[in-house]
């Protein structure tokens, strides 16, 4: 990621926040889909997710459905933070 892109991503303000660290596959992706469904096209969802299977699968599944994964970063507590922009229906 270039510095300008990183700066842009850092400044992205999520429209909604979701924590999926308390669920496992497939509820991780199901919850993200449901949260995105509540947003409008172009809005941004921030997702807190666990390392391992969620980090491997959730971003990939989101891309498969046409959503734009903007940023995935590790947080201080070992969880990850994912920013995703909702695709049109």
């Amino acid at each position, binding site marked *: 990621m270039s510095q300008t892109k990183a700066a842009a991503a850092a400044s992205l303000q999520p429209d909604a926040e979701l924590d999926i660290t308390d669920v496992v596959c*497939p*509820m991780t*992706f*199901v*919850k993200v*889909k*449901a949260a995105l*469904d*509540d947003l409008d096209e172009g809005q941004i969802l921030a997702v807190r997710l666990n390392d391992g299977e969620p980090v491997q699968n959730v971003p990939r599944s989101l891309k*498969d*459905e046409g959503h734009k994964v903007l940023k995935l970063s590790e947080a201080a507590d070992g969880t990850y933070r994912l920013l995703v922009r909702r695709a049109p*229906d």
Partner: protein
Amino acid sequence: MALSDAQLERYSRNVILKEIGVKGQKKLLAGKVLIVGAGGLGAPAAMYLAAAGVGVLGLADADRVDLSNLQRQIIHATPDVGKPKVASARETIQALNPDVEVRTLEGLVQADNVLELVADYDFVIDGTDNFPAKFLINDACVLAGKPFSHAGIIRFKGQTTTWVPGQGACYRCLFVAPPPPDAVPTCRQAGVVGALAGVLGSLQAMEAVKYLTGVGQLLTGRLLTFDALSMDFRTIKVARRPNCAVCGPTPTILRPVDLQPAVCDLKAAKTA
């Protein structure tokens, strides 16, 4: 209305599908499907639609559960023998999925009630076992502009097609009129494999799910036949009959009519 956490979990395998998702699940929950006949076809159809979370399931059947039904009508169980089929089916559905509202008609679907009955639903499943009922449902659905799935089963063979207003052939385009009484045996006389009923009833449920969610291609203008012995599925294109008595440009059938059931059905019904 947002789906609850329990609903997201119950329907997770639907929601995860790109073609269904949250929006499709909401369509299913808002959907109303009428199932005429809680028997071999209606049992699997009702159970899969209940499991899928179809919001309202209408069930119409005049019969009571008979021991000989249980070989294929899996919505009923041994303790249900003697109960009205719609009552037994309601219990199974409510145990399976409390999200589903079940509406029942314990009685015959006839010319004088069929239009009123189908009017309340988005999609109709014909799970009946006799020709007069199949023509009645076809005519009523065509007259009311109500999409429906036809299926028929006997021995090891089944067939199914779907009609949607303005799309494809109706049942009367394919078969014009019922065969003469006794020309075709009923499954009482001829026998039918339970799993075959499961295959065809499940296909009907699949069509209802596709119609409600708006995904895929329905069996409109096509007749699917299944031969369980050779394990052959065939799909035949079927055209509208230009002079069809009910869906043609100058219809002669302008309201539903009760046709005389085959004599053997009457006898069997009286002794059942």
